[in-house]
């Protein structure tokens, strides 16, 4: 059977990620699509720890660590610095978590995209501050348990909706915006390859399940990532030249199939699940309307 995927590896074995980590697969796939002429900037996040302690590095391309809020600015500086030396053909990539993107880094991201640098910003979305131990972020979905939305006797789970940063980027009319997930690696790889060919700012949000943070068995990472799309929790779409294209899953599953695998949703009752399902359906219809525009 021929490989459906580039064989070259730019992420190494021996990294320090948790077993079954979705964020490592995100990095692995993104770099496969980009190739060796790339540099990645990483803010405070799991990925600042995954390569392990000095003097180790786990990428075959240069990786620049930066302060939490600085990904957007860092890739701007890398881009202009390389361009000023005639290195326009190198890919400059930010690889930031959802906290570093939806929360503390949003201003810098928005500004970098607005300035129009030829850069790719990848948000690996594991839906909470996993590196610090599962605190809620703006990208944590409605209903989820985290250590700062601990449910308790007052049922204090996360009571606000997930901030979809990709939607914000579309609102800013970023030339290329996409959502992807590691359960569909060929789709992810194609989107990164598409982004690579576009000169200008690009943004890709990759749902990257986290076994300890979402409370599931590490072997289920890929399964959960696929279910997120099929249960309509994380729709896949692509925005290019002002046109939105929404992926319609070949197979759809009830929301419960997705939630029941994860401890972070274990407290939800049928009524609450029903409410979430309605909200997700509403967002799905909204995306379809936008696609028609």
């Amino acid at each position, binding site marked *: *059977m021929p*490989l*459906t*995927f580039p*064989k070259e*590896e730019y*992420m*190494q*074995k*021996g*990294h*320090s*990620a*948790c*077993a*079954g*980590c*979705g964020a*490592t*697969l995100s990095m*692995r796939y993104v770099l496969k699509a980009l190739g060796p002429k790339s540099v990645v900037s990483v803010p405070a996040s799991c990925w600042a720890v995954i*390569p*392990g302690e*000095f*003097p*180790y*590095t*786990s990428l*075959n391309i240069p990786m620049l660590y930066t302060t939490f809020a600085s990904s957007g600015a860092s890739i701007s500086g890398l881009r202009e610095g390389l361009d000023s030396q005639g290195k326009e053909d190198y890919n400059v990539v930010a690889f930031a978590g959802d906290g570093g993107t939806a929360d503390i880094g949003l201003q810098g991201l928005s500004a970098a995209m607005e300035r129009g640098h030829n850069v790719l910003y990848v948000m690996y979305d594991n839906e909470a501050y996993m590196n610090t131990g599962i605190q809620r972020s703006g990208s944590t979905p409605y209903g989820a348990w985290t250590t700062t939305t601990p449910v308790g006797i007052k049922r204090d789970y996360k009571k606000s909706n997930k901030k979809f940063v990709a939607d914000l980027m579309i609102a800013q009319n970023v030339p290329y915006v996409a959502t992807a997930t*590691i359960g569909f*690696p060929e789709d992810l790889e194609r989107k990164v390859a598409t982004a690579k060919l576009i000169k200008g700012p690009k943004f890709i949000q990759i749902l990257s399940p986290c*076994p300890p943070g979402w409370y599931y*068995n*590490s*072997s*289920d*990472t*890929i*399964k959960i990532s696929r279910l997120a799309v099929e249960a309509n929790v994380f729709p896949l779409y692509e925005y290019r030249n002002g046109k939105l294209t929404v992926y319609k899953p070949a197979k759809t599953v009830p929301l419960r199939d997705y939630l029941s695998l994860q401890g972070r949703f274990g407290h939800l009752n049928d009524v609450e699940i029903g409410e979430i399902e309605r909200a997700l359906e509403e967002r799905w219809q909204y995306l379809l309307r936008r696609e028609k525009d």
Partner: protein
Amino acid sequence: MVIVPVAYLPTSSKELSSWRTSRPVIDYSKCTRCAICWKFCPDVAIDLSPDPSLSAPNDRFKALEAPRIDYDHCKGCGICAEECPFDAIAMVEEE
């Protein structure tokens, strides 16, 4: 010369087998060499190389690149076993 905080040593030189509580074991007689396990391995701990000495469901598969678990770097997450469409990988508890 000053000490710069730049790390150059590849992590592939590290050994992480102690992280694992169970190990994936491939039953090559069921393995079609589809490489799905390789594709989904978060630890890049499955190598692909042809090895005609391994068994296979039929001779045609023997010539293809076969997955081989790198037990020095496998953390035993079990994704390969979960995703293998031919049930050719089993998770076996480490002693």
